[in-house]
């Protein structure tokens, strides 16, 4: 069973439906026991980072997610859920995050050229790092395939853990991984067939399997 962590941010309907479309039954839950029982976990999220971090911690779910990740369970953070995986984030103040992947979530404004609109909304291409093997998360995906992004902040200082970038006047982290912990800045559940194939690859990961880094 896959658990989608429900901590009161964002609409989880599309995510559940997209998993159903690839034949994976998912439980949307905020119950620590259910999350502990699951064999893999998705941490979703839209909205503001501080608010999300607060809500996740308020329910004690931060600890549950960290414990389960430490056991080697595959964990996938999506969009804001991905940003929560890093050490800290700076959206409207500085916020401690889960610290599961080294890095820091910062505004893209200082790094992208003038005239580029923020948020970065739309379909953009995946670029894989040249010096590392392709992540198992992308085993059904080719470089240059498009996925759907909606974000204003991005994960920086996570160099060795980047498994895909995208180009928006600057290189922005599109996905990162450390061990069994994965994060996608884009929305696989809104990225058509490419996105579904990424979810499928995540659901096929074995517990404790290395992320190819």
């Amino acid at each position, binding site marked *: 069973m896959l658990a989608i962590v429900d901590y009161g941010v964002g609409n989880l309907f599309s995510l559940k439906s997209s998993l159903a479309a690839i034949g994976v039954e998912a439980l949307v839950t905020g119950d620590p026991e259910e999350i502990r029982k699951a064999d893999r976990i998705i941490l979703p999220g839209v909205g503001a980072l501080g608010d999300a971090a607060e809500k996740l911690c308020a329910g004690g779910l931060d600890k549950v997610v960290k414990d389960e990740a430490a056991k080697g369970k595959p964990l996938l953070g999506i969009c804001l859920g991905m940003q929560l995986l890093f050490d800290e984030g700076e959206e409207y103040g500085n916020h401690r995050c889960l610290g599961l992947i080294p890095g820091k979530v910062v505004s893209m404004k200082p790094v992208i050229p003038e005239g580029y*609109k923020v948020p970065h909304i739309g379909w953009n291409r995946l670029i894989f790092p040249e010096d590392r093997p392709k992540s198992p998360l992308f085993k059904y995906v080719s470089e240059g395939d498009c996925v759907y992004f909606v974000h204003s902040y991005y994960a920086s200082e996570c160099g060795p853990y980047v498994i895909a970038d995208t180009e928006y006047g600057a290189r922005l982290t599109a996905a990162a991984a450390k061990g069994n912990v994965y994060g996608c800045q884009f929305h696989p559940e809104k990225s*058509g067939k490419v996105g579904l194939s990424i979810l499928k690859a995540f659901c096929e990961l074995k517990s404790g399997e290395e992320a190819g880094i």
Partner: protein
Amino acid sequence: MITKRIIPCLDVKDGRVVKGVNFKGLSDVSSPVELGRYYSENGADELVFYDITASAEGRALFTDILTEVARTIFIPLTVGGGINTIDDFDRVLKCGADKVSVNSGAIRNPGLISEAAKKYGDQCVVLSVDAKREGGRFCVYAKGGRENTGMDAIEWIKKGISLGAGEIVLNSIDTDGVKKGFDLEMLKAVCDISPVPVIASGGAGSIEDFITLFKEIPEVDAGLAASIFHFGEVAIPDLKKALAEAGINVR
């Protein structure tokens, strides 16, 4: 680099797509679910469902249909039509919409934009504007283009963005339905002042019109159209191919 988006818009009344379509291979050409799936599998980058129902029964049907569409389609879904309150946002978002488009409801109550942006994020709020030339400026029309509000479109869009609108759909009443191309002059004027994505609507009649749009105004993020897609005059895969050949970055 981010790709230019192509967005078909479907008008739904009492749970059915109005202005039937003309596609082979669809068993039910006015089913929003079938049409949505068709477009999403054929290169559409996003879908807009516009509820033109007037009755409460029709609205309930729309909500059911929307849930079904969201269950089967895995590309971004925008919903518009009859969005007047934060409860309307809530209703369509719960059914699986990703963005909500406001028009007359925001003209009556601009606070709706800020309230929704605060609750759901800027990226969720799309400000749709119907505008028409009037004495040397662009005027905002309400109620589906039937009523001149007297408001200046550029000022209204600036205000909408400052209130939290995350995207603008600009529909030119002057070019709408004429099929001789998008309103480049009006779009340029809006792109010049908009820090958020602008979606062009009204006037597309051919593939060339989209090429002209993205070549002439590189700041435009997306092109939206209805009938030319529905009647098969322009097939989205052909449009995408032609755009790519013209050097425009598409998915």
